[in-house]
Every structure is written in structure tokens, then in C-alpha cells.
């Protein structure tokens, strides 16, 4: 979230699209009801299903699953053509006036540089025109046809309300009603927030859906403002933290990136990640990258990381490609992998295409499952009848199942979607011999290190030199680990402006990432977490909930990254002169008297930068402004374009009916063998979408009695029209088939799933909640990833769980 949960109460309009906050995040959704009740805010829900969020919405518009870009692109077109944009904001804080390279183009659904063989783009032409000074050329009059504004206007003019309705199935009047309501927030004192979740991410074009939403927010001037922002509602309690800590194939802590194998030169590696400002007077904060990187290496490898060995740069693995979960299961299925460790993760249920995952796991030599609960993954080899029909005697994988603690049995911190790190305390001992996760990792690591120390082996250096300064090596305490990722001074850290002034003494905890140094004098495990545990103590454990400004900015409650800032880009809540656009909801403002920024939040800005200096509010971008034109940051184009889901009821993309290459996302990665696994609309005529229900959490709560009482048994939702066509009544058992498998479930026939008129034909949606499986106290059911396609978003490889094709039939008798 750019903003945070409580801040939603400051919104005038809330758009929930690509998410279902009322069901998936009920306690955060309370701030929507607060905004409605006390700010007279309106709530719009756009969703294929009339969800429980829609139940309390002021306006609901249906949409075909997977067509969100078309809807939002139509909205952009509406805002531009009706001149409902925040002029001051877009001129000052975005790349509206930036000139784009002359050879960039877009034709028949494909951007320049496409290689149909590789399904990817050469992005050389996706950039700005640079002047001789290295700065981007601009046209403040916005007249130049190569300026971002003009290009964008032309790009989105194609998304007329008629076209939107044709693609999305949303009735035109409903679409226009949503546009009108949203357009009102282009006023300075009206703010909209967008709340989305996996309804946007889990598409082959998911990242671009989110980008389109962000572009809408930028046009309306809603980013950085209280009650505004782009708010990704993360799905798990610490998925934010794990992402922050870089537990992804290609990341290092704090969104630093691992080097590719071609990046053999350390200086070049740093240089590429420390961009110089692209406009005069801009901060381009990531120029500090070397400080973050070196400090992390010092935290990990201590004295073994030296300037001479490039801070152990070579010890980090170098990427050939991204080994995300889809790639890993592809490789595993191809027999290229031998071992796998699943720590609190249930991929047999969570990863797409169960049959492929199951086959892949069966090819492993060993698998280790670390979990508090008996998961499906840990029993992938076991015969569970129709729900997991395998022959154990044919599966040679050795499986270890290690019991870990749950939340109640450990200390530690979690990062909420608001980016707030909150400490929690252990209440009881775990059952039996269960151990805390860090104790299990320590046990494994120390055993490995012992073996490497004794017997040697492949490249033991990083293993033998990994810092392990824990008082009880077998039980690194959460406190020690938190202090380590916060960072400490290895030597006195002095003020760069005054070398005699010691900011932090040797051995002391750091107060923030501003104190990091690239010379090895600081160690910091995760730079964005620097400040969480300073010499003041554990700031994540703070419990002062006072809200002095009354707008929900509880700065003394726990600690938020970065730098305890609660609303990102908050400089943009002020006009270029530093005055809040809406003084009644002030986040920060320029205090001319003291020459500093201040207010109810920590300024997301250089704190002493006078507005007259013209520094842009988006300091993480070398441009200093927000980008409508994504330059080379996206895999599938600088401007979002509608593509059909990989499995779509339409034969062609209505935007580009005669270009089969532009039917689905041209840059989406599909593994060779998987093309045949996609179903066609003649056999699988209905659009399916999978989702969570409010009663359950993923595949965990089926192990809990209370959740199982209130939602006991697997079901699918079917609209009344489709049900009538197929002779299905509520309570009947139905079989839902995709080209990859089938599930059997109870039918819930509902008015809430409408059939939509798409390109003149009626498209039905089948809703498939995900929560059941063959382990647990709830009634056993099928893992719904039996149905889902093995394809991910072009940028993030997030699987396309939200739009695929199925067929449905009534089962006459249940055996």
C-alpha cells in the first residue's frame, strides 16, 4: 500500500477493483465503512461477481474476468477527453511533458521491438529523448506529438465506451456512471483510493492492470494524498515483509536485485542500480544503492566481506534467469531438481496446475516441509482417493515433515500491508516437539556448516563465513535477528558535512538508512528496515496509538518502513509551492520559517529541500516525477494495453481482431509443453475465476473448527441463467472441468453472477472458491488448482488464477 489501512478513512471515493476487501481484509475494510459513514464517501465495486464488498457498495458494475485493462483504459480515455484530470498535479509531478524516443511505436497490439520467437521485447526504443546534458527533453506546452501526454492520449482514445462495453461486458451506462463518479475526484479537495489485490495480480497481464490503475490515480492527482494512493492489499500476514526482505529468486533485501550472470563487474553492477537524475535538481535516491548493498554484505559476511573482494560480490549466486515458482516447477517436472524445502508454504494447493506440481514433486529425491500444520504438500505422495489419486509405492521422494511453531508460540515482527512492522510476543509453548522456524533453519545450517567444515565440498566459503553471532547458535533469538537487520555501526559513523560530528558510535544500532555507508563501516541486513531497532530500543514494539492530527497517522504505533513514513510520496499531497492541496487533511507541508518539511507524517522527501528548488516528489525515480510511460520497466509495454487472458472465451482480442499475436499478452512466458494444456472455448465455454471467501484463509483454516463450521464444504457459484441452461439447482453437485482436470462441488446458484454480453455473445462466469483440500477438519474437497493454467504474468510470473475456461455439468448421483 502506498498509504495505509486507517488512511482509507480520509477518502472521498473508494474504488475496489481487482480485489474484494470486505471478504479478504474485513478489518481493513472497516476504514471504508468509516469513510462512508463519516466522510460521506462513496464506494464503487467493479468485479465479475457481486461480492460481499459489492453488498455494501454505493455502486456496483460487473466486468468480465480478465478485462480490467480495457475498463481502466476506457476510464483514462474518459478522463482525458472530458478534461477531468488534476492539471497542476500531472504537469508538475508526472512525465506528461517528457519526450519519448522517435522510434518507439505501437502497431496492431504490439509495441516496437517484439520478437515473436522469444515472446519478448527488445526495449531499446522504449525510452526518453535525452539532451546533451543527459537530461530528458520535455515540452511543457504538451503540444509535441512525442510527449507522453500526446502519446498516451492517442493510445487510449481507442478505448471508447462502446469498446469497453464490448470487451468487458459492462453495460455502457454502468461504465459511464463509474467514470463520472471517479472523474469528480480530479478536484484538489476530492480524493479517491484504489484497493486491489490478487484480482489484479493473478492475470497474465496483472502488472499492467495495476499500472493502469496507478495511471488513473496519477491523472486524478490522487497519489501521495491522504485518502488516496494505490493500495495493494497483501494476502498474507508477512508477505510484505518477506518481499521487503527479498526472499524471491532475483532479489536481495530492501528491493535490491541480484546480479545476472553477465554482470561480472562489481562497479558496473552498482552503477546500473544507482541512476543519475534524469532531470535537473532531482534527488534520485537510489544513487545510495552502494551503501545499502555493502552494508548488507557486511551484515551477512562480516569481516570476510572486504573492499578487496568487492564485499564478497562473487559469493552471491548470479542469475541465468528468474527461478520463480513456475520456473521451478517446470524445471522440477523436467527432472532438473533434486531437493526442495517448503517452509510454511503449500505449493501442491497454491501453485497452478496441481497435476504438474504433483508430478514434479514425485521426481524429487527429497523434500522438506516445515509447517505447523499437516499440509497437502507434505502428503502429495499419499493416496487420498479422488482428491489425490496417486500410488505411494511409485513415488520415490524422501519426505521430511518438521513441525514448526505458530504465531502464538513465538516472538517476532510482521510487516502489514501498511508497511508497518509490528512486534508480537510468545504466549505459550508449541505442542510436542515443534520448534520455531529460525531454530529449524539454524539446526539445518549448523549441521551443513559442520559437514562443510569437516569434509569440505563445493564452494564452502559463503557457508563457512556467514555471520552467526548468536548467543545460542542453535536458537538465534528474534531480538538478535531484528537488531541485525536494523544494522549497526562497525566504526564511528560521522556526519558527511562535518567529520568531527559522530552520528553513531561504533557498535551502536543505526537510527536509519541515512547513516549507512559504502565503505564497510556499517552493517545492515535490510536497509529499508534500518531504524526499526535503534539505540532507542525495539521501535516495532511501540504501542502509543495517539493520533494528534486526527487523520489516522499514529506515528508512535510500531514502526513503518521507510523511516517510519506512513504515506508514500506524501510530498505530492502539496502543491509545487509546498502547501497542502487540502489543508483539512494535511500530511506534510513546507515550513518556510524553519526551512523544513513537516506535518502529520515523516516527509517522503529531502526534508530541507525548498519548494523553489523544484525537486520532484517521486524521489525514487531518477526523473523525480511519476511515469505514465513506463520506459523499460515493464516486460510487456510502456503503456498498458488490453490483451485477453491466456484462456479466453473470445477467439481474438477485440482491440486487434486480425492479429493473433496480440490476442493474449505477447510477452507472457508459456513453457513449451504448456501450450497444449490451454482449453478452447468450444469445449470450455465458461469463464472461471478463483477466489477466497471471507470465512476461510487460504488452505489453513480448513484445519480450524470454527471456520469449518461457518463454511463447511466446497462449492462453486453459478449464475441463474447458466444454471437454468444446464439444469442445475442450488445444492446440486456439479463437475467443473478445465483442460487440466476436474473438481466436484456443491452448486450455489445465485443472482450475483450475471451473464455478460461480450462481443455480442453471452459470457457466463463460474466462481470457484479455493479453500478446500484433502487435509483438515472441514469436509474434504478438490484442490482448485487442479483446474488452473500454468501461466503467469509477464512481469512477475504471478499465475493466472483469475481468468480461465471451464465447463460445468450437473452430476446426477453422488457415489
Amino acid at each position, binding site marked *: 500500500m502506498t498509504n495505509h489501512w486507517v488512511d482509507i478513512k480520509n477518502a472521498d471515493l473508494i474504488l475496489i477493483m481487482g480485489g474484494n476487501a470486505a471478504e479478504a481484509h474485513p478489518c481493513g475494510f472497516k476504514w471504508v465503512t468509516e469513510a462512508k459513514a463519516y466522510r460521506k464517501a462513496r464506494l464503487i465495486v467493479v468485479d465479475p461477481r457481486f461480492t460481499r464488498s459489492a453488498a455494501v457498495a454505493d455502486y456496483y458494475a460487473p466486468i468480465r474476468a480478465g478485462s480490467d485493462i480495457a475498463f481502466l483504459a476506457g476510464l483514462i480515455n474518459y478522463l482525458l477527453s472530458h478534461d477531468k484530470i488534476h492539471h497542476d498535479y500531472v504537469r508538475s509531478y508526472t512525465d506528461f511533458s517528457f519526450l519519448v524516443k522517435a522510434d518507439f511505436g505501437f502497431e496492431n497490439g504490439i509495441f516496437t521491438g517484439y520478437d515473436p520467437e522469444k515472446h519478448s521485447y527488445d526495449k531499446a526504443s522504449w525510452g526518453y529523448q535525452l539532451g546533451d546534458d543527459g537530461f530528458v527533453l520535455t515540452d511543457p506546452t504538451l503540444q509535441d506529438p512525442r510527449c507522453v501526454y500526446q502519446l498516451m492520449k492517442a493510445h487510449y482514445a481507442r478505448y471508447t465506451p462502446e469498446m469497453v462495453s464490448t470487451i468487458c461486458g459492462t453495460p455502457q451506462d454502468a461504465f459511464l456512471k463509474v467514470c463520472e463518479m471517479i472523474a469528480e475526484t480530479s478536484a484538489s479537495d476530492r480524493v479517491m483510493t484504489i484497493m486491489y489485490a490478487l484480482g489484479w495480480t493473478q492475470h497474465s497481464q496483472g502488472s499492467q492492470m495495476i499500472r493502469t490503475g496507478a495511471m488513473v490515480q496519477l491523472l486524478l492527482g490522487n497519489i501521495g494524498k491522504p485518502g488516496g494512493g494505490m493500495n495493494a492489499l497483501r494476502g498474507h500476514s508477512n508477505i*510484505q515483509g518477506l518481499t521487503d526482505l527479498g*526472499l524471491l529468486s532475483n532479489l536481495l533485501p530492501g528491493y535490491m536485485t541480484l546480479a545476472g550472470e553477465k554482470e561480472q563487474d562489481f562497479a558496473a553492477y552498482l552503477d546500473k542500480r544507482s541512476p543519475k537524475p534524469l532531470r535537473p535538481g532531482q534527488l534520485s535516491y537510489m544513487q545510495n544503492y552502494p551503501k545499502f548493498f555493502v552494508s548488507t554484505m557486511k551484515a551477512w559476511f562480516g569481516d570476510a566481506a572486504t573492499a578487496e573482494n568487492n564485499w564478497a560480490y562473487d559469493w552471491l549466486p548470479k542469475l541465468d534467469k528468474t527461478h520463480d515458482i513456475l520456473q521451478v516447477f517446470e524445471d522440477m517436472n523436467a527432472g532438473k531438481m533434486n531437493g526442495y*524445502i517448503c517452509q510454511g508454504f503449500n505449493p501442491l494447493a497454491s501453485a497452478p496446475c496441481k497435476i504438474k506440481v504433483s508430478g514434479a514433486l514425485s521426481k524429487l529425491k527429497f523434500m522438506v516441509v516445515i509447517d505447523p500444520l499437516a499440509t497437502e504438500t507434505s502428503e502429495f505422495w499419499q493416496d487420498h482417493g479422488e482428491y489425490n489419486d496417486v500410488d*505411494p509405492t511409485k513415488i520415490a521422494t524422501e519426505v521430511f515433515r518438521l513441525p514448526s511453531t505458530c504465531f502464538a508460540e513465538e516472538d517476532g515482527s510482521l510487516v502489514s500491508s501498511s508497511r508497518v512492522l509490528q512486534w508480537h510476543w510468545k504466549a505459550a509453548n508449541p505442542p510436542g516437539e515443534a520448534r520455531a522456524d529460525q531454530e529449524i533453519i539454524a539446526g539445518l545450517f549448523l549441521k*551443513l556448516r559442520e559437514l562443510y567444515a569437516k569434509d569440505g565440498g563445493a564452494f564452502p566459503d559463503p557457508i563457512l563465513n556467514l555471520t552467526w553471532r548468536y548467543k545460542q547458535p542453535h536458537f538465534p533469538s528474534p531480538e538478535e*535477528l531484528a537488531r541485525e537487520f536494523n544494522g549497526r555501526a562497525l566504526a564511528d559513523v560521522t556526519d558527511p558535512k562535518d567529520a568531527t560530528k559522530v552520528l553513531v558510535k561504533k557498535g551502536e544500532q543505526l537510527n536509519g538508512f541515512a547513516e549507512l555507508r559504502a565503505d564497510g563501516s556499517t552493517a545492515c541486513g535490510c536497509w529499508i528496515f534500518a531504524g526499526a531497532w535503534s539505540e532507542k530500543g525495539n521501535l516495532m514494539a511501540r504501542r502509543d496509538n495517539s493520533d494528534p492530527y486526527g487523520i489516522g497517522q499514529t506515528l508512535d504505533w510500531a514502526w513503518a518502513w521507510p523511516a517510519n513514513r506512513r504515506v508514500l510520496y506524501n510530498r505530492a499531497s502539496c502543491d509545487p509551492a509546498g502547501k497542502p492541496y487540502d489543508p483539512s487533511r494535511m500530511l506534510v507541508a513546507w515550513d518556510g520559517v524553519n526551512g523544513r518539511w513537516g506535518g502529520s507524517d515523516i516527509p517522503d522527501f529531502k526534508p530541507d529541500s525548498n519548494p523553489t528548488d523544484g525537486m520532484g516528489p517521486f524521489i525514487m525515480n531518477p526523473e523525480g516525477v511519476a511515469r505514465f510511460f513506463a520506459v523499460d520497466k515493464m516486460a510487456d509495454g510502456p503503456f498498458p494495453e488490453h490483451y485477453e487472458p491466456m484462456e479466453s472465451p473470445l477467439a481474438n482480442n477485440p482491440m486487434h481482431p486480425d492479429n493473433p499475436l496480440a490476442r493474449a499478452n505477447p510477452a507472457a512466458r508459456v513453457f513449451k509443453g504448456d501450450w497444449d494444456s490451454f482449453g478452447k472455448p468450444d469445449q470450455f465455454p465458461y469463464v472461471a475465476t478463483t477466489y477466497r471467501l471471507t470465512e476461510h484463509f487460504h488452505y489453513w483454516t480448513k484445519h*480450524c473448527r470454527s471456520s469449518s463450521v461457518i463454511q463447511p464444504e466446497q462449492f462453486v457459484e453459478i449464475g441463474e441463467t447458466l444454471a437454468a441452461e444446464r439444469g442445475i439447482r442450488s445444492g446440486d453437485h456439479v463437475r467443473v472441468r478445465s483442460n487440466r482436470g476436474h473438481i466436484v462441488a456443491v452448486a450455489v446458484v445465485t443472482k450475483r453472477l450475471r451473464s455478460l454480453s461480450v462481443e455480442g455473445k453471452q459470457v457466463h462466469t463460474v466462481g470457484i472458491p479455493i479453500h478446500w483440500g484433502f487435509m483438515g477438519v472441514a469436509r474434504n474437497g478438490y484442490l482448485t488448482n487442479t483446474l488452473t493454467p500454468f501461466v503467469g504474468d509477464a512481469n512477475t510470473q504471478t499465475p493466472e488464477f483469475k481468468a480461465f475456461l471451464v465447463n460445468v455439468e450437473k452430476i446426477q448421483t453422488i457415489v
Partner: protein
Amino acid sequence: MNLSRRQFFKVCAAGAGTTSLALLGFSPDAALAEVRAFKLANATETRNTCPYCSVGCGILIYTLGDRSKNAHAEVIHIEGDPDHPVNRGTLCPKGAGLLDFVQSENRLKYPEYRAPNSREWQRITWDDAFTRIARLMKEDRDANFVATNEAGQTVNRWLSTGMLAASASSNETGYLTHKFARSLGMLAFDNQARV
């Protein structure tokens, strides 16, 4: 028949009052009714965070006993933390039922091992588990570690064993896990951010 409420009670009271006592001489028993005793009166309260979605609701865990040496702390109740600025004491149905997660019959209690082609689990000790897993990992790493790629570039990576990290584990666990995985040269490394 449409007696008003008031009439109804009057008739009742008059009839009952006169007849019951006079006829039978039984006296009604004392009009006492105690509510169920408040069950958390002296339970120990511990502050924690809900492990499900990312709202990060504050919760209060109530355990049996006062943490004295001989009292085994058992979680007996969980409810929302009213001080928490986001949830303000509220919890969703999953959070409100967290006790059933802590006490689920499907909690794992000891390390288990499933041999190749076996149909069942067998209990093993932690030490056996660590020793055996470490040996398997080392064997695989030593055999398949790639120090340099075909182009002769230093890559120091281990692709044949991978790891998925837990989206509900703490930052502290996550940080340690990251150190662990990268020190081994792992790249087949992911978490639940996508699903």
C-alpha cells in the same frame, strides 16, 4: 383476543398473586440469577498479531495460569486488541477463530520421515532429521553446484535444490532464511507473494 400488554400482566399478576399463595402456601424461591462467571478474570494476556491476512490486526492471547514455573500456559481464548489503531479490537471470522488454529487437531508435534515408496510416516528425532537432510543437501550441492557457467563467468549458484519461504513467518525468520539460502547459492527461491 387482543389483550393489551398491560392488561395481560395485570390479569396475570392478580390471578397468580391471589391464588397461588392462598391455595398452596408454597413460597417462590429466591429471585437470584448469577451470570456465567467471567472466564478471563485472571488469565495471562499476551499481545500478538494475527497471522492471516496483511491487515496486521492486533490480538490478545489469553493463557491459563500466571506464568509461574509450574503452570503450563495453554491458550484458552483470543480476541482483538482494542488499542490497535487498525483493527481497534475487531477481528474477522478467521481471526476470531484463531484459537482453533492453535489447537487444531492437525498441528504437527514431532519430526516425521517418509521413506521412498513408503505408504506411511515414521517418527524421527530432530537430530536425525537435521543430519539426514543436511547430508542430502550437501550431496546434491556438491554434485550440482555451478561455480562458473559455460561462458566461464563466475556464477556460484546451486539450482538443483530450491526453497519456498513462508509468508506468515516473522521478519526475523525470513531474514535468517534468506541468509541461509543465499549462502548456499540458491536461486530457486520464492515466497507466497504471487499466490
